[in-house]
Protein backbone atom coordinates (compact mmCIF):
# COMPACT_ATOMS: atom_id res chain seq x y z
CA UNK A 1 0.00 0.00 0.00
CA UNK A 2 1.02 3.52 0.00
CA UNK A 3 3.05 3.16 3.08
CA UNK A 4 5.57 0.82 1.46
CA UNK A 5 5.50 2.05 -2.04
CA UNK A 6 8.13 4.72 -1.50
CA UNK A 7 10.43 1.99 -0.26
CA UNK A 8 10.04 -0.13 -3.29
CA UNK A 9 10.60 2.61 -5.69
CA UNK A 10 14.23 2.74 -4.63
CA UNK A 11 15.98 0.27 -7.02
CA UNK A 12 18.47 -0.93 -4.38
CA UNK A 13 15.75 -1.77 -1.96
CA UNK A 14 13.82 -3.41 -4.76
CA UNK A 15 16.73 -5.65 -5.65
CA UNK A 16 17.27 -6.58 -2.04
CA UNK A 17 13.57 -7.09 -1.51
CA UNK A 18 13.20 -9.34 -4.50
CA UNK A 19 16.37 -11.40 -4.18
CA UNK A 20 16.96 -12.21 -0.49
CA UNK A 21 16.69 -15.82 0.54
CA UNK A 22 14.42 -14.93 3.48
CA UNK A 23 10.81 -14.05 3.32
CA UNK A 24 10.13 -10.43 4.21
CA UNK A 25 6.79 -9.03 5.21
CA UNK A 26 5.43 -5.85 6.74
CA UNK A 27 2.39 -6.08 8.93
CA UNK A 28 0.20 -3.32 10.18
CA UNK A 29 -1.35 -2.91 13.59
CA UNK A 30 -4.27 -5.11 12.80
CA UNK A 31 -1.98 -7.96 11.77
CA UNK A 32 -2.62 -7.57 8.08
CA UNK A 33 0.19 -8.16 5.72
CA UNK A 34 0.70 -5.11 3.68
CA UNK A 35 3.89 -6.05 1.96
CA UNK A 36 5.53 -9.38 1.12
CA UNK A 37 8.46 -10.20 -1.08
CA UNK A 38 8.28 -12.93 -3.75
CA UNK A 39 10.28 -15.28 -1.56
CA UNK A 40 7.56 -15.15 1.11
CA UNK A 41 4.95 -16.23 -1.39
CA UNK A 42 7.13 -19.04 -2.51
CA UNK A 43 7.83 -20.17 1.07
CA UNK A 44 4.16 -20.27 1.91
CA UNK A 45 3.04 -21.67 -1.44
CA UNK A 46 1.02 -18.67 -2.64
CA UNK A 47 0.91 -17.01 -6.04
CA UNK A 48 2.94 -13.86 -6.08
CA UNK A 49 0.99 -11.09 -4.43
CA UNK A 50 -1.67 -13.33 -2.93
CA UNK A 51 -0.16 -12.98 0.53
CA UNK A 52 -0.93 -9.29 0.60
CA UNK A 53 -4.05 -8.64 2.60
CA UNK A 54 -3.83 -11.85 4.55
CA UNK A 55 -3.66 -11.73 8.33
CA UNK A 56 -0.39 -12.87 9.84
CA UNK A 57 -2.38 -15.57 11.63
CA UNK A 58 -3.28 -17.04 8.24
CA UNK A 59 0.33 -18.15 7.98
CA UNK A 60 0.29 -19.87 11.37
CA UNK A 61 -1.17 -23.30 12.15
CA UNK A 62 -4.71 -23.04 13.52
CA UNK A 63 -3.90 -24.24 17.02
CA UNK A 64 -1.35 -21.48 17.54
CA UNK A 65 -3.30 -18.57 16.07
CA UNK A 66 -5.14 -17.44 19.18
CA UNK A 67 -2.04 -17.33 21.27
CA UNK A 68 -0.16 -15.53 18.53
CA UNK A 69 -2.76 -12.88 18.30
CA UNK A 70 -2.34 -12.07 21.98
CA UNK A 71 1.39 -11.95 21.73
CA UNK A 72 1.25 -9.83 18.57
CA UNK A 73 -1.08 -7.29 20.19
CA UNK A 74 1.21 -6.99 23.22
CA UNK A 75 4.19 -6.62 20.98
CA UNK A 76 2.52 -3.82 19.07
CA UNK A 77 1.96 -1.85 22.23
CA UNK A 78 5.64 -1.94 23.20
CA UNK A 79 7.51 -2.87 20.09
CA UNK A 80 11.17 -3.69 20.16
CA UNK A 81 13.54 -5.57 17.99
CA UNK A 82 13.40 -9.28 18.69
CA UNK A 83 13.57 -12.60 17.09
CA UNK A 84 11.12 -15.39 17.21
CA UNK A 85 11.44 -19.11 16.87
CA UNK A 86 15.17 -19.27 17.41
CA UNK A 87 15.73 -22.58 19.10
CA UNK A 88 12.04 -23.18 19.59
CA UNK A 89 10.95 -24.82 16.37
CA UNK A 90 8.32 -22.30 15.37
CA UNK A 91 5.85 -23.74 12.90
CA UNK A 92 4.44 -21.90 9.84
CA UNK A 93 1.44 -22.86 7.68
CA UNK A 94 1.56 -23.15 3.92
CA UNK A 95 -1.40 -22.45 1.67
CA UNK A 96 -1.82 -26.16 1.08
CA UNK A 97 -2.05 -26.82 4.85
CA UNK A 98 1.38 -28.32 5.27
CA UNK A 99 3.71 -26.89 7.87
CA UNK A 100 7.37 -26.03 8.06
CA UNK A 101 9.76 -24.61 10.61
CA UNK A 102 10.71 -20.96 10.60
CA UNK A 103 12.77 -18.46 12.47
CA UNK A 104 11.55 -14.94 12.48
CA UNK A 105 13.19 -11.59 13.23
CA UNK A 106 10.77 -8.85 14.14
CA UNK A 107 11.53 -5.19 13.74
CA UNK A 108 9.17 -2.33 14.48
CA UNK A 109 9.32 0.43 11.92
CA UNK A 110 7.70 3.82 12.05
CA UNK A 111 6.38 5.13 8.80
CA UNK A 112 4.52 8.40 8.70
CA UNK A 113 3.84 8.25 12.45
CA UNK A 114 2.38 4.78 12.20
CA UNK A 115 4.09 1.72 13.67
CA UNK A 116 4.47 -1.27 11.40
CA UNK A 117 6.20 -4.49 12.08
CA UNK A 118 8.60 -5.98 9.60
CA UNK A 119 9.33 -9.68 9.81
CA UNK A 120 12.20 -11.52 8.23
CA UNK A 121 11.24 -15.19 7.80
CA UNK A 122 13.87 -17.90 7.46
CA UNK A 123 12.98 -21.47 6.53
CA UNK A 124 14.80 -23.59 9.09
CA UNK A 125 13.11 -26.89 8.28
CA UNK A 126 16.34 -28.39 7.16
CA UNK A 127 18.19 -27.19 10.20
CA UNK A 128 15.48 -28.47 12.48
CA UNK A 129 15.53 -31.76 10.69
CA UNK A 130 19.28 -31.93 11.16
CA UNK A 131 18.98 -30.94 14.75
CA UNK A 132 16.36 -33.58 15.19
CA UNK A 133 18.63 -36.10 13.62
CA UNK A 134 21.51 -34.99 15.81
CA UNK A 135 19.27 -35.19 18.80
CA UNK A 136 18.17 -38.64 17.83
CA UNK A 137 21.75 -39.66 17.27
CA UNK A 138 22.64 -38.19 20.59
CA UNK A 139 19.93 -39.98 22.40
CA UNK A 140 20.90 -43.18 20.64
CA UNK A 141 24.45 -42.61 21.69
CA UNK A 142 23.37 -41.97 25.22
CA UNK A 143 21.45 -45.21 25.14
CA UNK A 144 24.56 -46.96 23.90
CA UNK A 145 26.69 -45.40 26.59
CA UNK A 146 24.17 -46.48 29.18
CA UNK A 147 24.18 -50.02 27.83
CA UNK A 148 27.95 -50.09 27.66
CA UNK A 149 28.16 -48.81 31.21
CA UNK A 150 25.95 -51.65 32.32
CA UNK A 151 28.06 -54.10 30.37
CA UNK A 152 31.26 -52.73 31.86
CA UNK A 153 29.78 -52.88 35.32
CA UNK A 154 28.64 -56.41 34.69
CA UNK A 155 32.00 -57.52 33.39
CA UNK A 156 33.73 -55.81 36.30
CA UNK A 157 31.39 -57.66 38.59
CA UNK A 158 32.17 -60.82 36.68
CA UNK A 159 35.92 -60.24 37.02
CA UNK A 160 35.74 -59.51 40.68
CA UNK A 161 33.43 -62.48 41.17
CA UNK A 162 35.99 -64.62 39.37
CA UNK A 163 38.76 -63.20 41.52
CA UNK A 164 36.71 -63.49 44.71
CA UNK A 165 35.80 -67.07 43.97
CA UNK A 166 39.25 -68.08 42.76
CA UNK A 167 39.55 -71.45 44.45
CA UNK A 168 42.34 -72.44 46.84
CA UNK A 169 44.28 -69.27 46.49
CA UNK A 170 44.33 -65.58 45.79
CA UNK A 171 44.76 -63.23 42.86
CA UNK A 172 46.89 -60.26 43.77
CA UNK A 173 48.18 -57.12 42.18
CA UNK A 174 51.24 -55.50 43.74
CA UNK A 175 52.93 -52.19 43.18
CA UNK A 176 56.68 -51.64 42.95
CA UNK A 177 57.05 -51.84 46.74
CA UNK A 178 55.08 -55.11 46.74
CA UNK A 179 52.15 -53.48 48.46
CA UNK A 180 48.71 -54.90 47.77
CA UNK A 181 46.74 -52.95 45.18
CA UNK A 182 44.21 -55.67 44.62
CA UNK A 183 43.61 -58.99 46.31
CA UNK A 184 40.75 -61.42 46.05
CA UNK A 185 40.27 -65.15 46.31
CA UNK A 186 38.41 -67.79 48.15
CA UNK A 187 41.29 -68.49 50.48
CA UNK A 188 41.00 -64.98 51.93
CA UNK A 189 37.46 -65.76 52.86
CA UNK A 190 38.48 -69.08 54.32
CA UNK A 191 41.19 -67.41 56.37
CA UNK A 192 38.71 -64.76 57.47
CA UNK A 193 40.66 -61.90 55.92
CA UNK A 194 38.99 -59.16 53.95
CA UNK A 195 40.70 -57.77 50.90
CA UNK A 196 40.19 -54.22 52.23
CA UNK A 197 42.34 -55.10 55.20
CA UNK A 198 45.20 -56.21 53.00
CA UNK A 199 45.16 -53.50 50.40
CA UNK A 200 47.98 -51.04 51.05
CA UNK A 201 49.88 -53.48 53.28
CA UNK A 202 53.09 -55.16 52.22
CA UNK A 203 53.02 -58.66 50.85
CA UNK A 204 56.40 -59.60 52.30
CA UNK A 205 55.17 -58.99 55.83
CA UNK A 206 52.83 -61.90 55.33
CA UNK A 207 55.70 -64.22 54.51
CA UNK A 208 58.01 -66.14 56.85
CA UNK A 209 61.11 -64.11 57.49
CA UNK A 210 63.62 -66.70 56.32
CA UNK A 211 62.22 -66.89 52.79
CA UNK A 212 61.46 -63.18 52.42
CA UNK A 213 64.70 -62.26 50.59
CA UNK A 214 64.17 -65.03 48.06
CA UNK A 215 60.55 -64.04 47.38
CA UNK A 216 61.45 -60.37 47.17
CA UNK A 217 64.19 -61.07 44.66
CA UNK A 218 61.91 -63.22 42.55
CA UNK A 219 59.04 -60.74 42.54
CA UNK A 220 61.25 -57.78 41.77
CA UNK A 221 62.57 -59.50 38.65
CA UNK A 222 58.98 -59.58 37.44
CA UNK A 223 59.11 -55.80 37.25
CA UNK A 224 61.91 -56.27 34.72
CA UNK A 225 59.49 -58.16 32.54
CA UNK A 226 60.39 -61.71 33.56
CA UNK A 227 57.50 -63.92 34.63
CA UNK A 228 58.18 -66.08 37.68
CA UNK A 229 56.82 -69.40 38.78
CA UNK A 230 57.89 -70.92 42.08
CA UNK A 231 56.67 -72.63 45.22
CA UNK A 232 56.78 -71.52 48.84
CA UNK A 233 55.76 -73.03 52.12
CA UNK A 234 53.77 -70.98 54.56
CA UNK A 235 52.30 -72.24 57.83
CA UNK A 236 52.42 -75.84 56.69
CA UNK A 237 50.74 -75.05 53.39
CA UNK A 238 52.46 -75.16 50.04
CA UNK A 239 51.74 -72.40 47.56
CA UNK A 240 52.56 -72.09 43.93
CA UNK A 241 53.32 -68.50 43.01
CA UNK A 242 52.80 -67.38 39.46
CA UNK A 243 53.87 -63.80 38.88
CA UNK A 244 53.58 -61.89 35.61
CA UNK A 245 54.13 -58.23 34.76
CA UNK A 246 51.00 -56.16 34.19
CA UNK A 247 51.78 -53.80 31.37
CA UNK A 248 49.45 -51.07 30.23
CA UNK A 249 50.33 -48.56 27.55
CA UNK A 250 53.62 -47.38 28.99
CA UNK A 251 56.77 -49.40 28.72
CA UNK A 252 57.35 -49.25 32.43
CA UNK A 253 55.95 -52.05 34.53
CA UNK A 254 54.63 -50.64 37.75
CA UNK A 255 52.29 -53.43 38.70
CA UNK A 256 52.53 -57.18 38.76
CA UNK A 257 49.86 -59.82 38.85
CA UNK A 258 50.57 -62.58 41.34
CA UNK A 259 48.46 -65.68 41.47
CA UNK A 260 48.92 -67.59 44.69
CA UNK A 261 47.59 -71.10 44.50
CA UNK A 262 47.43 -73.47 47.44
CA UNK A 263 48.75 -76.75 46.10
CA UNK A 264 49.15 -78.54 49.42
CA UNK A 265 46.55 -81.12 48.51
CA UNK A 266 48.04 -81.84 45.09
CA UNK A 267 51.46 -82.05 46.71
CA UNK A 268 50.16 -84.52 49.24
CA UNK A 269 48.65 -86.57 46.45
CA UNK A 270 52.00 -86.54 44.68
CA UNK A 271 53.73 -87.55 47.90
CA UNK A 272 51.22 -90.35 48.38
CA UNK A 273 51.67 -91.47 44.79
CA UNK A 274 55.42 -91.45 45.20
CA UNK A 275 55.12 -93.38 48.44
CA UNK A 276 52.88 -95.93 46.71
CA UNK A 277 55.36 -96.16 43.87
CA UNK A 278 58.23 -96.52 46.31
CA UNK A 279 56.34 -99.24 48.14
CA UNK A 280 55.66 -100.99 44.86
CA UNK A 281 59.35 -100.78 44.01
CA UNK A 282 60.35 -102.11 47.41
CA UNK A 283 57.88 -104.97 47.04
CA UNK A 284 59.33 -105.76 43.66
CA UNK A 285 62.86 -105.72 44.99
CA UNK A 286 61.73 -107.85 47.89
CA UNK A 287 60.13 -110.27 45.47
CA UNK A 288 63.31 -110.69 43.46
CA UNK A 289 65.34 -111.05 46.65
CA UNK A 290 62.86 -113.63 47.84
CA UNK A 291 63.09 -115.57 44.60
CA UNK A 292 66.88 -115.73 44.69
CA UNK A 293 66.92 -116.56 48.40
CA UNK A 294 64.17 -119.18 48.11
CA UNK A 295 65.91 -120.71 45.12
CA UNK A 296 68.98 -121.36 47.22
CA UNK A 297 67.44 -122.05 50.60
CA UNK A 298 64.91 -124.54 49.23
CA UNK A 299 67.12 -126.27 46.71
CA UNK A 300 69.80 -127.31 49.18
CA UNK A 301 67.54 -129.27 51.59
CA UNK A 302 65.52 -130.59 48.64
CA UNK A 303 68.78 -131.89 47.16
CA UNK A 304 69.60 -133.66 50.37
CA UNK A 305 66.13 -135.23 50.48
CA UNK A 306 66.32 -136.37 46.88
CA UNK A 307 69.82 -137.84 47.15
CA UNK A 308 69.03 -139.52 50.47
CA UNK A 309 65.93 -141.21 49.02
CA UNK A 310 68.07 -142.38 46.07
CA UNK A 311 70.56 -143.86 48.52
CA UNK A 312 67.81 -145.53 50.61
CA UNK A 313 66.59 -147.23 47.41
CA UNK A 314 70.10 -148.40 46.66
CA UNK A 315 70.74 -149.80 50.18
CA UNK A 316 67.39 -151.61 50.15
CA UNK A 317 68.34 -153.10 46.79
CA UNK A 318 71.60 -154.33 48.29
CA UNK A 319 69.86 -155.29 51.53
CA UNK A 320 72.08 -152.94 53.52
CA UNK A 321 69.18 -151.88 55.74
CA UNK A 322 71.30 -150.49 58.57
CA UNK A 323 72.61 -147.81 56.21
CA UNK A 324 69.14 -146.38 55.54
CA UNK A 325 68.62 -144.99 59.05
CA UNK A 326 71.11 -142.14 58.54
CA UNK A 327 69.29 -141.08 55.41
CA UNK A 328 65.81 -141.09 56.87
CA UNK A 329 67.28 -138.87 59.60
CA UNK A 330 68.72 -136.58 56.95
CA UNK A 331 65.39 -136.34 55.19
CA UNK A 332 63.70 -135.48 58.48
CA UNK A 333 66.33 -132.86 59.26
CA UNK A 334 65.97 -131.28 55.82
CA UNK A 335 62.21 -131.22 56.17
CA UNK A 336 62.66 -129.52 59.54
CA UNK A 337 64.96 -127.01 57.92
CA UNK A 338 62.37 -126.26 55.26
CA UNK A 339 59.68 -125.96 57.92
CA UNK A 340 61.85 -123.49 59.79
CA UNK A 341 62.20 -121.31 56.71
CA UNK A 342 58.46 -121.51 56.24
CA UNK A 343 57.93 -120.55 59.88
CA UNK A 344 60.17 -117.57 59.37
CA UNK A 345 57.94 -116.43 56.53
CA UNK A 346 54.86 -117.04 58.57
CA UNK A 347 56.17 -115.20 61.60
CA UNK A 348 57.03 -112.21 59.45
CA UNK A 349 53.50 -112.29 58.18
CA UNK A 350 52.07 -112.69 61.67
CA UNK A 351 54.21 -109.89 63.04
CA UNK A 352 53.12 -107.74 60.12
CA UNK A 353 49.47 -108.26 60.91
CA UNK A 354 50.17 -108.13 64.67
CA UNK A 355 48.34 -111.34 65.45
CA UNK A 356 50.93 -112.50 67.98
CA UNK A 357 49.90 -111.02 71.31
CA UNK A 358 52.53 -109.80 73.74
CA UNK A 359 52.44 -111.72 77.02
CA UNK A 360 54.20 -109.87 79.79
CA UNK A 361 55.31 -112.14 82.62
CA UNK A 362 57.67 -111.90 85.51
CA UNK A 363 60.54 -114.31 84.80
CA UNK A 364 64.16 -115.01 85.65
CA UNK A 365 66.32 -113.63 82.89
CA UNK A 366 69.43 -115.36 84.23
CA UNK A 367 67.87 -118.77 83.59
CA UNK A 368 66.74 -117.76 80.11
CA UNK A 369 70.27 -116.59 79.23
CA UNK A 370 71.89 -119.77 80.58
CA UNK A 371 69.51 -121.99 78.60
CA UNK A 372 70.09 -119.93 75.51
CA UNK A 373 73.89 -120.27 75.64
CA UNK A 374 73.56 -123.98 76.27
CA UNK A 375 71.20 -124.42 73.32
CA UNK A 376 73.33 -122.35 70.97
CA UNK A 377 76.47 -124.21 72.09
CA UNK A 378 75.27 -127.22 70.08
CA UNK A 379 75.41 -125.33 66.78
CA UNK A 380 78.65 -123.38 67.17
CA UNK A 381 81.55 -123.93 64.78
CA UNK A 382 84.75 -125.50 66.00
CA UNK A 383 86.41 -123.31 68.60
CA UNK A 384 83.61 -120.77 68.78
CA UNK A 385 82.96 -119.94 72.43
CA UNK A 386 79.99 -117.90 73.60
CA UNK A 387 80.88 -115.79 76.65
CA UNK A 388 77.86 -114.83 78.71
CA UNK A 389 78.06 -111.72 80.92
CA UNK A 390 75.23 -110.58 83.13
CA UNK A 391 75.34 -107.31 85.06
CA UNK A 392 72.73 -106.06 87.50
CA UNK A 393 71.22 -106.74 90.88
CA UNK A 394 67.84 -108.23 90.22
CA UNK A 395 67.49 -110.63 87.30
CA UNK A 396 63.76 -111.16 87.63
CA UNK A 397 62.15 -108.93 85.06
CA UNK A 398 58.74 -108.27 83.53
CA UNK A 399 58.58 -108.70 79.80
CA UNK A 400 57.62 -111.30 77.20
CA UNK A 401 60.16 -114.15 77.66
CA UNK A 402 59.28 -115.82 74.36
CA UNK A 403 59.89 -112.71 72.36
CA UNK A 404 63.18 -112.13 74.18
CA UNK A 405 64.23 -115.75 73.51
CA UNK A 406 63.41 -115.36 69.83
CA UNK A 407 65.43 -112.19 69.62
CA UNK A 408 68.41 -113.78 71.37
CA UNK A 409 68.19 -116.89 69.21
CA UNK A 410 68.31 -114.78 66.05
CA UNK A 411 71.19 -112.58 67.17
CA UNK A 412 73.37 -115.36 68.58
CA UNK A 413 72.81 -117.67 65.62
CA UNK A 414 73.75 -114.79 63.33
CA UNK A 415 76.95 -114.29 65.33
CA UNK A 416 77.75 -118.00 64.91
CA UNK A 417 76.87 -118.03 61.22
CA UNK A 418 78.77 -114.91 60.22
CA UNK A 419 82.00 -115.53 62.12
CA UNK A 420 84.62 -118.19 61.58
CA UNK A 421 86.02 -121.06 63.60
CA UNK A 422 87.82 -120.19 66.85
CA UNK A 423 86.24 -116.74 66.95
CA UNK A 424 84.78 -115.60 70.30
CA UNK A 425 81.19 -114.43 70.70
CA UNK A 426 80.28 -112.08 73.52
CA UNK A 427 76.70 -112.03 74.84
CA UNK A 428 76.39 -109.35 77.49
CA UNK A 429 73.34 -108.15 79.39
CA UNK A 430 72.88 -105.15 81.67
CA UNK A 431 69.72 -105.00 83.72
CA UNK A 432 68.68 -101.82 85.51
CA UNK A 433 65.41 -100.71 87.13
CA UNK A 434 63.77 -99.76 83.92
CA UNK A 435 65.74 -101.27 81.08
CA UNK A 436 67.20 -104.43 79.67
CA UNK A 437 70.29 -103.81 77.56
CA UNK A 438 71.77 -106.65 75.54
CA UNK A 439 74.65 -106.68 73.18
CA UNK A 440 75.94 -109.51 71.03
CA UNK A 441 79.37 -109.14 69.48
CA UNK A 442 81.16 -111.39 67.03
CA UNK A 443 84.57 -111.14 65.39
CA UNK A 444 83.29 -112.14 61.99
CA UNK A 445 82.99 -110.94 58.43
CA UNK A 446 81.13 -107.74 59.38
CA UNK A 447 78.59 -105.82 57.37
CA UNK A 448 79.77 -103.80 54.35
CA UNK A 449 79.12 -100.07 54.80
CA UNK A 450 76.97 -99.84 51.67
CA UNK A 451 74.66 -102.59 52.90
CA UNK A 452 74.17 -101.33 56.45
CA UNK A 453 71.21 -99.12 55.56
CA UNK A 454 69.17 -101.99 54.22
CA UNK A 455 70.02 -104.55 56.84
CA UNK A 456 66.54 -104.77 58.35
CA UNK A 457 64.83 -105.04 54.97
CA UNK A 458 63.08 -108.33 54.42
CA UNK A 459 64.97 -110.85 52.27
CA UNK A 460 67.88 -108.45 52.05
CA UNK A 461 71.28 -110.07 52.27
CA UNK A 462 74.59 -108.23 52.37
CA UNK A 463 76.98 -108.61 49.44
CA UNK A 464 79.52 -110.55 51.47
CA UNK A 465 77.10 -113.29 52.58
CA UNK A 466 75.76 -114.50 49.23
CA UNK A 467 77.64 -117.73 49.76
CA UNK A 468 76.28 -118.23 53.28
CA UNK A 469 72.85 -119.70 53.59
CA UNK A 470 70.10 -117.50 54.98
CA UNK A 471 66.67 -116.13 54.27
CA UNK A 472 67.30 -112.46 54.97
CA UNK A 473 64.42 -112.51 57.42
CA UNK A 474 66.08 -112.82 60.84
CA UNK A 475 66.87 -109.18 61.58
CA UNK A 476 63.58 -108.08 60.13
CA UNK A 477 61.84 -110.39 62.59
CA UNK A 478 64.01 -109.16 65.47
CA UNK A 479 63.09 -105.60 64.65
CA UNK A 480 59.38 -106.42 64.50
CA UNK A 481 59.60 -108.18 67.87
CA UNK A 482 61.37 -105.21 69.41
CA UNK A 483 58.69 -102.88 68.12
CA UNK A 484 56.18 -104.96 70.05
CA UNK A 485 58.17 -104.39 73.24
CA UNK A 486 58.91 -100.70 72.47
CA UNK A 487 62.54 -101.72 72.24
CA UNK A 488 65.34 -100.45 70.04
CA UNK A 489 67.87 -102.23 67.86
CA UNK A 490 71.10 -100.67 66.66
CA UNK A 491 74.40 -102.02 65.46
CA UNK A 492 78.00 -101.18 64.74
CA UNK A 493 80.10 -103.09 62.29
CA UNK A 494 83.48 -103.03 60.65
CA UNK A 495 83.89 -105.32 57.68
CA UNK A 496 86.21 -108.28 58.36
CA UNK A 497 86.59 -107.09 61.96
CA UNK A 498 83.53 -107.32 64.13
CA UNK A 499 79.82 -106.69 64.46
CA UNK A 500 77.88 -105.68 67.56
CA UNK A 501 74.10 -105.59 67.88
CA UNK A 502 72.68 -103.47 70.71
CA UNK A 503 69.21 -103.94 72.12
CA UNK A 504 67.38 -101.81 74.66
CA UNK A 505 64.03 -102.92 76.02
CA UNK A 506 62.10 -100.99 78.66
CA UNK A 507 61.12 -103.28 81.54
CA UNK A 508 59.35 -103.22 84.84
CA UNK A 509 60.97 -105.02 87.73
Amino acid at each position, binding site marked *: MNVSEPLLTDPIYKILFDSIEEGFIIVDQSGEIILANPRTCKLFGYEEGDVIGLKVEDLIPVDLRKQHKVIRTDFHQSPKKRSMGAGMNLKALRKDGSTFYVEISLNPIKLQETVFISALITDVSERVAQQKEIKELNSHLEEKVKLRTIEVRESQELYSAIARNFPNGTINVFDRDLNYIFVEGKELFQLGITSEKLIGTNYLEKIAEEIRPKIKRALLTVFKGEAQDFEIEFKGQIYRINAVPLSYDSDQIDRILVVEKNITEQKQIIIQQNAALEKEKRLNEMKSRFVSMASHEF*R*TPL*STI*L*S*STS*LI*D*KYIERELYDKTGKHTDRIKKSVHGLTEILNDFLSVDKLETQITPVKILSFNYEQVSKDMVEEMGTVTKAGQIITRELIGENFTISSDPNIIKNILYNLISNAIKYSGENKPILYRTEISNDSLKIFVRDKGIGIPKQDQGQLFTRFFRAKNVT*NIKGTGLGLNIVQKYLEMLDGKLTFESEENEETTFYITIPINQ
Partner: protein
Amino acid sequence: MRVKILLIEDNHEMLENIEEILELADYDVVTAENGKKGVPLIKKELPDLILCDIMMPELDGYGVLDAISRDPLTAAIPFIFLTAKSGKEDFRKGMNLGADDYLTKPFDDRQLLDTVERRIKKVYLTTRQRFWNT
Protein backbone atom coordinates in the same frame (compact mmCIF):
# COMPACT_ATOMS: atom_id res chain seq x y z
CA MET B 1 91.89 -148.49 36.86
CA ARG B 2 89.17 -146.82 38.90
CA VAL B 3 88.05 -143.34 38.05
CA LYS B 4 88.85 -140.73 40.72
CA ILE B 5 86.37 -137.93 41.37
CA LEU B 6 87.08 -134.90 43.55
CA LEU B 7 83.98 -133.42 45.22
CA ILE B 8 83.81 -129.94 46.74
CA GLU B 9 80.62 -129.11 48.63
CA ASP B 10 80.11 -127.00 51.78
CA ASN B 11 76.87 -128.63 52.89
CA HIS B 12 77.93 -131.57 54.99
CA GLU B 13 74.91 -133.80 54.26
CA MET B 14 75.08 -133.19 50.52
CA LEU B 15 78.81 -133.89 50.53
CA GLU B 16 78.24 -137.26 52.20
CA ASN B 17 75.24 -138.18 50.04
CA ILE B 18 76.99 -137.45 46.77
CA GLU B 19 80.08 -139.27 48.00
CA GLU B 20 77.98 -142.36 48.87
CA ILE B 21 76.15 -142.36 45.53
CA LEU B 22 79.45 -142.17 43.64
CA GLU B 23 81.13 -144.84 45.77
CA LEU B 24 78.18 -147.18 45.28
CA ALA B 25 78.76 -146.67 41.54
CA ASP B 26 82.41 -147.75 42.04
CA TYR B 27 84.10 -144.40 41.77
CA ASP B 28 86.97 -143.33 44.01
CA VAL B 29 85.90 -140.14 45.77
CA VAL B 30 88.02 -137.45 47.44
CA THR B 31 86.13 -134.65 49.23
CA ALA B 32 86.71 -131.09 50.36
CA GLU B 33 84.24 -128.92 52.31
CA ASN B 34 85.12 -125.63 50.61
CA GLY B 35 87.01 -124.17 47.69
CA LYS B 36 89.98 -123.07 49.74
CA LYS B 37 90.66 -126.63 50.84
CA GLY B 38 89.63 -128.04 47.45
CA VAL B 39 92.18 -126.30 45.22
CA PRO B 40 95.37 -127.76 46.84
CA LEU B 41 93.65 -131.14 47.02
CA ILE B 42 92.97 -131.07 43.25
CA LYS B 43 96.64 -130.31 42.62
CA LYS B 44 97.70 -133.13 44.90
CA GLU B 45 95.21 -135.78 43.75
CA LEU B 46 94.94 -134.87 40.04
CA PRO B 47 91.45 -136.43 39.79
CA ASP B 48 89.75 -137.54 36.55
CA LEU B 49 86.76 -135.30 37.23
CA ILE B 50 85.79 -132.45 39.56
CA LEU B 51 82.30 -131.90 41.01
CA CYS B 52 82.12 -128.48 42.63
CA ASP B 53 79.40 -126.47 44.39
CA ILE B 54 79.20 -122.76 43.47
CA MET B 55 77.99 -121.00 46.61
CA MET B 56 80.58 -121.65 49.30
CA PRO B 57 82.30 -119.52 51.92
CA GLU B 58 86.03 -118.77 51.67
CA LEU B 59 86.47 -119.57 47.97
CA ASP B 60 83.43 -120.18 45.76
CA GLY B 61 83.11 -122.52 42.77
CA TYR B 62 83.99 -119.86 40.22
CA GLY B 63 87.19 -119.20 42.16
CA VAL B 64 88.08 -122.90 42.18
CA LEU B 65 87.57 -123.19 38.42
CA ASP B 66 89.63 -120.07 37.82
CA ALA B 67 92.45 -121.35 40.04
CA ILE B 68 92.76 -124.76 38.37
CA SER B 69 92.47 -123.28 34.86
CA ARG B 70 95.67 -121.33 35.47
CA ASP B 71 97.64 -124.49 36.23
CA PRO B 72 98.48 -126.57 33.07
CA LEU B 73 98.53 -129.71 35.20
CA THR B 74 94.89 -129.26 36.25
CA ALA B 75 93.44 -127.12 33.45
CA ALA B 76 92.21 -130.06 31.38
CA ILE B 77 90.37 -131.90 34.17
CA PRO B 78 86.63 -132.10 33.38
CA PHE B 79 84.76 -129.73 35.67
CA ILE B 80 81.06 -129.98 36.63
CA PHE B 81 79.28 -127.33 38.68
CA LEU B 82 76.71 -128.33 41.29
CA THR B 83 74.48 -125.40 42.03
CA ALA B 84 71.37 -124.18 43.74
CA LYS B 85 71.30 -121.26 41.36
CA SER B 86 68.89 -121.85 38.53
CA GLY B 87 69.11 -118.56 36.68
CA LYS B 88 70.24 -118.53 33.04
CA GLU B 89 72.79 -115.89 33.93
CA ASP B 90 74.44 -118.19 36.46
CA PHE B 91 74.46 -121.04 33.97
CA ARG B 92 76.10 -118.88 31.33
CA LYS B 93 78.66 -117.52 33.77
CA GLY B 94 79.70 -121.04 34.77
CA MET B 95 79.93 -122.25 31.19
CA ASN B 96 81.81 -119.15 30.05
CA LEU B 97 84.43 -119.77 32.71
CA GLY B 98 85.07 -123.12 31.05
CA ALA B 99 82.95 -125.58 33.03
CA ASP B 100 82.07 -128.76 31.12
CA ASP B 101 78.66 -129.32 32.62
CA TYR B 102 76.19 -128.02 35.10
CA LEU B 103 73.94 -129.85 37.60
CA THR B 104 71.13 -127.89 39.20
CA LYS B 105 69.99 -128.87 42.70
CA PRO B 106 67.93 -130.82 43.51
CA PHE B 107 69.13 -133.74 41.39
CA ASP B 108 68.69 -137.47 41.95
CA ASP B 109 71.29 -140.25 41.67
CA ARG B 110 70.48 -140.99 38.00
CA GLN B 111 71.01 -137.40 36.87
CA LEU B 112 74.26 -137.26 38.80
CA LEU B 113 75.64 -140.57 37.55
CA ASP B 114 74.55 -139.94 33.93
CA THR B 115 76.29 -136.60 33.88
CA VAL B 116 79.47 -138.02 35.42
CA GLU B 117 79.52 -141.09 33.07
CA ARG B 118 78.94 -138.98 29.97
CA ARG B 119 81.87 -136.77 30.86
CA ILE B 120 84.24 -139.71 31.69
CA LYS B 121 83.31 -141.52 28.49
CA LYS B 122 84.07 -138.48 26.41
CA VAL B 123 87.47 -138.11 28.04
CA TYR B 124 88.16 -141.81 27.50
CA LEU B 125 87.21 -141.61 23.81
CA THR B 126 89.31 -138.52 23.19
CA THR B 127 92.30 -140.01 24.93
CA ARG B 128 92.01 -143.28 22.96
CA GLN B 129 91.74 -141.35 19.69
CA ARG B 130 94.80 -139.38 20.59
CA PHE B 131 96.62 -142.59 21.41
CA TRP B 132 95.87 -144.22 18.01
CA ASN B 133 96.72 -141.02 16.18
CA THR B 134 100.23 -140.90 17.54
